[in-house]
């Protein structure tokens, strides 16, 4: 079973993402900000990290930057959840090391399609 780490400061979004992914048969762990996610990620090996961008304590881009420095996460797909449809944020995400993005609002099907796209 593929392991996914879902990071969002909004409990409702977290619930929605986790529920969708669990229902689809993934093993999902939650974290509510970048700092927490970084600690969780170091304790286990995840096949995919999906992270919100705007979060307190540590934002999503910093999380991605930090994850990429870890040997275990060099090539791991890291997706960001963003409401910004503008290219600027996506660029920033790419240079931080994000694999791609999911634009909010998204429905469960769109989420799953994207997750399958990176997990094969």
């Amino acid at each position, binding site marked *: 079973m593929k392991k996914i780490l879902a990071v969002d400061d909004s409990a409702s979004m977290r619930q*929605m993402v986790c529920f969708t992914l669990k229902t689809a048969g993934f093993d999902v762990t939650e974290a509510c900000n970048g700092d927490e996610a970084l600690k969780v990620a170091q304790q286990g090996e995840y096949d995919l990290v999906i992270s919100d961008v705007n979060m307190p304590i540590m934002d999503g881009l910093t999380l991605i930057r930090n994850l990429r420095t870890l040997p275990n996460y060099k090539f791991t797909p890291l997706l960001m959840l963003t*409401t910004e449809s503008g290219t600027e944020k996506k660029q920033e995400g790419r240079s931080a090391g994000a694999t791609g993005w999911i634009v909010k*609002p998204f429905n469960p099907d769109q989420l799953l399609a994207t997750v399958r796209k990176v997990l094969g």
Partner: protein
Amino acid sequence: MEIDLSQFSQVFFEESLEGIDVMESELLNLDVNNPDEEAINTIFRAAHSIKGGSATFGFSQVANYTHLLETLLDEIRDGRRQMTNEHQDMLLLSVDLLRNMFDALMRKIDFDDPLLAQLEKQFTIEIAKGTKEAAPEEPDSSNDTLVEQEATGLLHWAIDFQAGIDILRCGNDPYLMFNELRQLGELSVSLAEHSSPEFNDIDPEACYLNWRLELITDQPLERLKEVFEWVEDECTINYSSSPASDDNSERDDELPNIEPDEATIPQEQQGSETVLSQLESNKVDEAQELKPKAVSQAKTPETSSIRVSIDKIDLLINMVGELVITQAMLGQIGQQDEIDEESLISLKQGLEQLATHTRDLQESVMQIRMLPISFAFNRFPRLVRDIGQQLGKKVNLVLKGEDTELDKTVMEKIVDPMVHLVRNSLDHGLETPEERLAKGKSEVGTITLNAFHQGGSIIIEIIDDGAGLDTDRILRKAREKGLVGQEEELSTEAIHKLIFKPGFSTADAVSDLSGRGVGMDVVRRNINELNGSIELKSTQDKGSRFTIRLPLTLAILDGQLIRVGRHIYVVPLVSIHESLQVEPNKINRLSDGHELIQLRNEYLPVIKVYQEFCHTSDAKEIKDGLVMVVDSNNEKIGLLVDELLSQQQVVIKSLEDNYNRVPGVSGATILGDGTVALIIDVTGLVSMAGITNMKEHAA
């Protein structure tokens, strides 16, 4: 996959309301001319989360509105726009508006407030005024036309894909992309010419490969580009197409024939704006659909929830564990046929432990309902700011003891009286800056809200450094209203107490703020209903201090059990001053039948409890029984009872829910032996006994 998104709504509502609170408090603390970056970020994040969630869960009205907020805040955050007072006001109004919108969502009714359209317009104008870069994204429409042009019959696509050197390091995998393309049509992949460095210089993590992809598909170019969307900036990708050999359609001349799902896929991916506008267009239908339901659902009670820290829950589980162990120990003793001395000792030990654990458990359960009073205090900065502005008074609000914990229900019920008191302080207490300067005070007035625990109670103080109560004016007013005799002289303290009398209001004209007829008597009554009390200390030109004393919880009461005849009643311990036997020579009978006792240098009216509740009792006369001196609305009064029994904590059961409202009784409880005891409502008993003006009696 069918997932019902409405299951996440409740959590979304709760976190959004919390976000709105955060926005409000940050906005109020904001120095507009020199805004703190982190504060703006926090406000932005709150708006941003609400927008994201509401769009995801289908609340388009909120999503559209918060999008405007977010746009403005983003520009402020980036330094593209200077924050102004007008922005602050607009955002604060939005806070109110959003609260109402969420209220409507939770009650499943339509939200229809002209303020929404007005603010929306204001934001749109404001945003349009600003930076040119913030123009609404138009490329969307051009993409649409592209889609239309390209979406035709089967095409043979040749894609030259030169992967960026870092593509793997971002977690992108060309293989997965090719797989995705394969799902769109017939794909063949071949490695194209590429230049790798010398063997020794090869970086094993880099990608040096180029591919040629040939795809026969009916999908539009946009769909193909979507596959490479994440990597298009760092890879070189060239697309060229020719009609597939078995397809002769002349696509340049013919109007495209778009299948419905082909057209919708790319649109959905274009980002929130497009989807928002789609939601917008659905809004009318949704609203109409909802309307008939709204009537029946409007009354659905909202399930209120409470957030409890894990620590509290852990503690609770720990307690239950202890309790189970004690139960096991007692159970073992219970199984023995005979109880010898040794097991008697362990039985007693077990019972002692049981008592400790039960008490601990009770305390921890109570803890769950406890919230820091900051939940109630938090609304005051806004209130003070708005009213201060309205009245042209300069006010500094000081909050102290915000961490003091209080039962959630008590907190909910104390907010209104507090609001009233703070409004009063602002309106009547604090002077205008000119008046203050004339009095030699600083032109900025101070209102302090302070909370702390004292014994089993919580004390909330509302202190202002304003003018204090105008005793002459109060006395004059009271005489006009006939509350005080024309010749009667009262102490300052007694005059202060007059403001708590029903129907007393000194406001000469009913102002918009306080003094609208619902006076301090309502405040006092509300507080009394919570088993609390309110006191006032005021010094002319120095200020006033209202002190509210409340029990920590409404569920449990420290009670004194008393006996009247064969009936047992509970009197709240907080209201008891003392109990005594009265000598016959200290008892005076009045002409109206009421009796007074002399206690030191005071005269107190005595209520014979057995008379009010129609019981037969041992002690018919005051000299034969015990007089318990209790507090009713800050006045002392005696209750004649037969006997004082034990003091104990009782769990309050509502009489109203289970039976009826009974005058003189505030609730009931079940005692250790299973009998029901009624809890005496002292204030109610006083009015039952027909004692209206105790001072008059005493005089």
